[in-house]
């Protein structure tokens, strides 16, 4: 399956409780070989979107996996692997027995169970009961379970929750590897910063609506356009006039210091040089993706 092929496509997902709409026409696509970050604040509707996509909750809209609704395949686990907050099973079941049960359900072999346990590094813990698993171990078992059917699509809901930095790094490398093998990977998170190192594309959800969806590089570039240039000059009034004439905005920051937005530092430096305004300090701060996401969310909040 070539990289970039659409493997999953959700269209116009919508869910309401009475008059309150919690999800409003959410659409997204997952492509082969890509990690899609699905980002939003807690309560933005990420989990609801995923549950609707997987048919675990009722709502409007359609989701097709490789061009067909999930039930049409007859074996969901061979189409999409989902990790939804650790592991859901009988607490008295042992890890190996639980995975063998799931393998039987999706027509996978017991050999595949052993392979997946080894892949996530839990062979030694296979005799533990599900109730004995730590959060990190439960996430790994969840990943092993998701891969049992060898699905082309992987969906993980907040997989980094409760993981230590070492485990987060393992997870990041693991998911990049899965995408490199051609799977479409979707990872939800309320931390956009996590996506800078993981995702190829990002879909930002705010209050149940998609407010941004683009390649991560484009999002970073847009975030860059919101950079803040800090200047120090003995002639701020003249610099203010020059900046405003060229579409920027200068805000005094005390003494000879000021912040310029809407123009990058090269443009500010050129304007100052051409206008004969001396500059004693010039620096530019790029907002993190996190700050950018927060600003988008705040804008959306104001609009609504």
């Amino acid at each position, binding site marked *: 399956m070539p990289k970039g092929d659409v493997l999953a496509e959700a269209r116009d997902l919508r869910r309401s409780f009475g008059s309150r709409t919690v999800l409003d026409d959410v659409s997204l696509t997952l492509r082969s070989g890509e990690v899609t970050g699905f980002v939003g604040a807690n309560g933005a509707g990420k989990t609801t979107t995923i549950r609707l996509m997987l048919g675990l*909750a009722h709502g409007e809209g359609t989701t097709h996996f490789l061009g067909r609704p*999930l039930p049409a395949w*007859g074996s969901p686990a061979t189409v999409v692997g989902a990790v939804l907050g650790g592991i*859901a*099973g009988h607490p008295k079941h042992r890890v190996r027995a639980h995975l063998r*049960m*799931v393998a039987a359900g999706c027509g996978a072999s017991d050999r595949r169970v052993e392979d997946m346990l080894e892949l996530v590094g839990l062979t030694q813990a296979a005799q533990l009961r599900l109730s004995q698993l730590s959060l990190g171990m439960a996430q790994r078992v969840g990943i092993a379970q998701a891969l049992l059917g060898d699905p082309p699509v992987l969906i993980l809901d907040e997989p980094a929750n409760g993981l230590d930095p070492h485990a987060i790094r393992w997870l990041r490398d693991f998911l990049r590897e899965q995408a490199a093998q051609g799977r479409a990977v979707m990872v939800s998170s309320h931390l956009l910063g996590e996506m800078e190192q993981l995702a190829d594309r990002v879909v930002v959800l705010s209050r149940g609506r998609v407010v941004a969806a683009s390649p991560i590089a484009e999002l970073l570039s847009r975030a860059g356009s919101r950079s803040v240039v800090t200047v120090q000059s003995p002639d701020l009034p003249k610099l203010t006039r020059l900046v405003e004439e060229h579409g920027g905005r200068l805000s005094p920051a005390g003494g000879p210091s000021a912040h310029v937005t809407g123009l990058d530092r090269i443009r500010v430096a050129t304007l100052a040089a051409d206008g004969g305004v001396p500059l004693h300090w010039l620096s530019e701060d790029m907002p993190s993706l996190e700050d950018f996401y927060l600003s988008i969310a705040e804008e959306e909040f104001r609009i609504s």
Partner: protein
Amino acid sequence: MTADVTHTPRTVPAGEALRNACRYEWRHLTALRSTWVLLSVVAVLSLLTGPGMLFDLDRDRPMSAAAMGDLLAWAPMTTQVPMLCFLVLILGTGPVSTDLVRGAARTTWLAVNGPRTAYAAKSVVGFLVGAGVAATSALVGGVSAAVVLAVSGAPQPAWGAVGVPMLRFVLWMGCWALVCMALVALMRSRTVPVVVLCLWPVLGERLAGLLLGYVPGLDGVGDWLPFSVGRAMLTDVSAFAGDERTFVEAMVGSDLSTPVALLVYLLYTAALTAAGYWAYVRREAPTG
């Protein structure tokens, strides 16, 4: 970055999906230690059917096939108590409550082909395991009884005629598993159905039948309540001799003939299973 793993999945036919789902449910049951503990209890106590007969054994007259069938189906120490525990707690309420109460539905529905297939598989496995355990228990109890009769020098009953009441018993136990499952799906609770299922046959239905008898025009409705029907299905009153019949009639508490009772009980089971299926399928997978 190269694409070297993903492939278009195979479409799994409905029959194969159901078979896989049945294997899922079977493994769910066999992976629980409580299943094996209660099955062992059923096996051990079934063996006690024979020794239990020694208390009122008539060494001169052969036991009638109907009485032997009744003994195997109703011996409370050896069959009913452990069997009902097994069916209610493990087989009947476990698979559905694990999904809806413990929150494992998302695992089940994504492993097998959604809630419809899942419930169908639970019903198939529940019925077959319930019936299988009942058949084994009856067989073990029968062998135990035959050995005790032989050792004590008492005549053997007409074993060939015991088969039909045993078949009804096996069918009853299979249906009982379906009824348990349906109630859990309808109530989305494990405790309440267990309490209801334990108390209703013993107390609730007898009281309900009694009270309904006082309502003008409803006299006789008690005969048609589910467990009155079940008892009438299990015990063919007409097969008992005159002196035993009065006592058996009182124990059964229904005037329905065995074939009619069998049909009505199957209809009850079908109706409850359909309602349970509807309730299970329309629920969302619990979060958390």
